[in-house]
Structure formats: C-alpha cells, structure tokens
C-alpha cells in the first residue's frame, strides 16, 4: 500500500502518537484506566500499522523477529524477576511492599515493573503473531 499517499502520510503521522499513547497507558496505568496488557496491544498495533502500510520487509527491518521473540521472553523475566526481588528483600514472592522502605512506594514500584514486563511481552507477542500470519505464504 506504499503508493497510497494519504494512507502513508497519515500513518507516518499517527505512529509516533500511537506509541506515545501506549506509553501513557502503560505508565499512567496505576492512576487511570490502563495497564500493561492494553499498552502492549496499542504499542504492538503501531508496528502492525507500519507493517500493513509499508510492507512486511520494512517491518521486519524495524523490528527484527529474532529480537522480538527474545522480548517476549524478556517481559516474562521482568515480571518474574520483580517477584524474586520481593523474595530477596525478605518478603514473599511478588511482595512489592518490601522493595522500598516505605511499603506504599514499594507497592508502587513493584506494580510499575510488573506491568512493564506485561507490556513488553504483550507488545512483542502481538508483533510476532502479526509476522507469523502475514508471512505465512513464505
């Protein structure tokens, strides 16, 4: 669809804002509606839009599949690692209260990290699913 000028320019214009909105949903998730899953889907959709308009080859160059696959795993590691951090700080697994001297601040930090892990995995999974379906005939 590279020859559709309107689509190309509008999507070029939109993609940074989609990503920014994803980051807002990600990091504002503990105050407003949102969180890692929603943010991950929105972030992934920016890449999917790019892939749809500019073609799979370019999308693969922007987000190399080998790296994206590893990001799926890395997100899970961030989540589980936060759980372990609570464990090493003297609490139970996933107990964020002990991450900082102030339990409320600890909870805040913990949920931020966990949601970041979720967001990473979801975004990377969305992109991987898109790559797999779009590149099926190859």
């Amino acid at each position, binding site marked *: 669809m590279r020859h559709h000028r309107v689509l190309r320019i509008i999507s070029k214009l939109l993609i940074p804002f989609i990503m920014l909105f994803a980051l807002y949903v990600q990091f504002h998730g503990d105050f407003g509606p949102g969180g890692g899953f929603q943010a991950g889907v929105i972030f992934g959709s920016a890449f999917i839009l790019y892939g749809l308009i500019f073609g799979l080859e370019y999308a693969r160059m922007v987000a190399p599949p080998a790296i994206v696959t590893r990001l799926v*795993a890395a997100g899970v590691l961030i989540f589980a*690692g936060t759980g372990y951090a609570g464990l090493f700080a003297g609490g139970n697994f996933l107990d*964020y209260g002990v991450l900082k001297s102030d339990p409320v601040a600890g909870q805040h930090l913990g949920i931020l990290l966990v949601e970041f892990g979720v967001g990473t995995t979801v975004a990377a999974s969305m992109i991987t699913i898109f790559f797999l379906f779009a590149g099926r005939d190859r």
Partner: protein
Amino acid sequence: MSSLIPQLPALQVVIPLFAAPLCVLAGRTGLAWFIALAASATATLTAAVLAYLTYHNGTISYEMGGWEPPWGIEYVVDTASAFILLLVASIGTMVLIYSPASVGKEIRSGRGHLYYCMYLLCLTGLLGIAITGDAFNVFVFLEISSLSSYALIAMGGQRKALTAAFQYLIMGTIGATFFLIGVGLLYMMTGTLNMADLQTRIPGIQDSRPVLAAFAFITVGLALKAALFPLHLWLPNAYAFAPSGVSAFMAATATKVSLYVLLRFTFTIFGAKFAFLNLPLYWVLLVPAVFAMFAGSFSAIFQRDVKRMLAYSSVAQIGYITLAIALASSAGVTAALIHIFNHGLMKAALFCAMGCIFYRIGSTRIDAMAGLGKQMPWTMTAIVAGGLSLLGVPLTAGFISKWYLVQAALQSNLWWLVVLIVLSSMLALVYVWRIVEALYFKEPVAGNEGIREAPLSMLLPTLLLAGANVYFGIDTRVPIAMAENAADLLLRGQIW
C-alpha cells in the same frame, strides 16, 4: 538455607517458570536443555523437601505476594499435593534427562530451545495446579499447562500431529471453560475463591441451583481434562503423534493432575456427603470408569501403532483410578492415589522405551518393530518390566495398585467389581503380549538388520523408570505411607 524453607512453596512453581523464558533467551538447544534440566532437578529437590516437611510437620501455607488469604492467593502443601508434586517433578526430570537425543531427532532444528521452554511451562502449570489453594489459580495453571502441551504436541514430526494438537485444543478448551464456569458460579454464590474458605461457605448454600450447576460443570470439565471415557477422544491422537518425550511426560502426569483436582474439589471443597449422598457422583463416576476399563483395553488390542495402543491403555487405567475415587472410602482414595503414582511410572517407562525404538527405526508401528528383541535387549527389558507392571504381576508396582484397588472394592462389598477389574486386566494381557510377541517371536523385518541398541542417554532414564516399577513393587513404604496420609487428609471430617 533455613530462611529459604518458608519460600519453598513459591520456588516450587516459579523456578521452572523463570527458567522457561531463559531457555528462549539462551537460543541454543544444548544450553536450553541444561537450563531446563537444572530447573526441573531443583523442582524435584524442592518437592522432596516439601513432601518430607508436610509428612512430618503437617500442612504448609504460603501467602503469595504477602496478601493474607482468603483475599490473596494461597499456596497449600499437604501430603496429597506434595505426593503429586513429587510425581510430576521427578517424572519431568527423568524425561528431560532422556530428551536431548530424541529432541535432536524429532524436533525441527532451530526449535529445540522453544521445545524446552514449552516443556518447562507445562511442568510449571502441572506443579501449580497441584500446589495452589485457590480455585481460580487452578484454572490459570490448567491453561498454562494446556496451552504449552498443545504447542508441544504440534511439534511432533508428522503432519497429523497438527490435527491431534488442534483436536486436543478444542476439547481441552471446552474442559477448561466448563471448569471456569463452575468456579465462576461458586464465586457468585460465596464471594470467595480460596479453597479452604469455599469449604466453610458451601454447606450453607449447597442445595441452591448455582452450586449444583457449579459442581456439575467442574466435574465434567475435569473429566474431559482427565480423559475419562467417553470424553477421552482427544487422548489417543495426542499421545500417538506427540514427540516421544512429550508422550512420556504427559501420559505420566497431565491426566493424573486433573484427577487430583477432581479429588480436591469433590472431597475438600464440596465434601463427600454433598457429592455422594445429595448427588449421584457414585454412579456418574463408576459407570464411565467401568466402560473405560473395557473400552480402553479393547481398543488397545486392535491398535497397529504401539504409542496409540499405550494411549488407549491409559484410558483404561484412568478408568481404574476413577473407579477407586467413586468408592469414596479411605481405602478407595488411597488406591486412587497409589495408582496415580504407579501408573505414572509405568507409562513413563513404556513411552520412553517407545521413544528409544522410534529413535532407531523411525516408527512405532507394531509390524515395523518385529524381531527387534535381540538387537535392542535393554529397551526390551524396559518394555517387559513396564508391561508386567501394567498387567499387575506380583513384584511390580502395578500389582500394588491392583491389590489396593481390589481391597477397596471388597471393603465396599462390591465383589462384582473385583470380577470386572480382573477381567479387564486380562485384556491388558492380550495387548502387552502382542508387543512382546512381535519383539521376540516374529521374524525380523527386512532392513532392520543394522539396528543397534538406543543411545545410553535415552536408555539409562528408561531403565531407571522401568526399575522404579520393580522397586516400588517391592519396597512400597514411601508411596503407600504418603497415599494413606493424603487419603486421611482428604476425607478428614467427612461424615461417611
């Protein structure tokens, strides 16, 4: 070390969970295998320590995230769950030791590390189901283990593996959804998901229709997951077309864990009085169980592929376990738990042996393996030991299972059931004999002359598993002590 012990219930699940993404990051099959083996061996050690602690000091409770139950997720280790944890983790480790050669042969190159990731996730799910004390958390782990096992089955070399995985995906999802609907109804009526909390709240409202519906949904959902006849149709293809290691691991553990959840919900949460006096669970389980014993064994006799044959045999064996649960007595539950353990050993040994044969001749068809007895003597030893155990010959683990099963049936004055158990065991003799006959007494197939014994890395775990069948047929102290203790615990306080 002492500060580590209170954290063991969490570590039991999260060590394999953490290692699974590490396998993906490792990228190389050999390294991923090493990570998986380390995680799985740690899980086995953890399970052994937990089993020891619960047996001697009683139930352990763990508050996930520091949230107090019933609000937070609670992990509960008692002898019943520790028994299942130990079975799942140790079989998982044995099969992992066995895996590298067969993965190299059966999994498309470049995918080995993903195989080990999925394997660890499946292990995580099964361990989680056994350890959690939260009804919804059971569903989450059920899905983790199921989704990863769909992927594992689809990795099988033949194209039919894809349809088998898809079939299992549809059936498994229906089962998990039924379970979730049941849990949802319970949550609606009680406002809690904690198992211990559910136990105290259900008696007051047990005649309400949503609770009855919840019980029905949960029982049917779990029966589907456990492949109880006539809901077993996904199982033969799934086991037959999965990679060898997956067949061995799943046949030994996956359906057993569902049966364990059935025990938990029936006895701990709803209570035997509700399930067996108010509701006809006795007949609901007994009739399919008896059909499973015969239909499974009959179907096994006519299979041409030994992996399929063993899969149908699993359907029959699940019948025995369900039968023992249906008796709802202390002896019955003990027999069920013992057979869960012993059948795990038998099927792991037999499927591993089939993997050895597949590694050498590229097929598990009974015609293709004719006359291999002389060329692969050690693999054949494992098959014979596993087969004898399946029949229930004295001095094998299978005999102990059958013995306790018959005792339990006699205690409930069901002598006709004893007749049926013995008759269906005769059918097992027919299909086990078909394998032995093909291996020892048939003329070797042309082209099989150069076949040698399987590599030591596969042979050793197979023989250890086969040896375990003999060992636990002679020294029965550990499984029986744990099973009896667990049965007491499940039936404690039940008016029965």
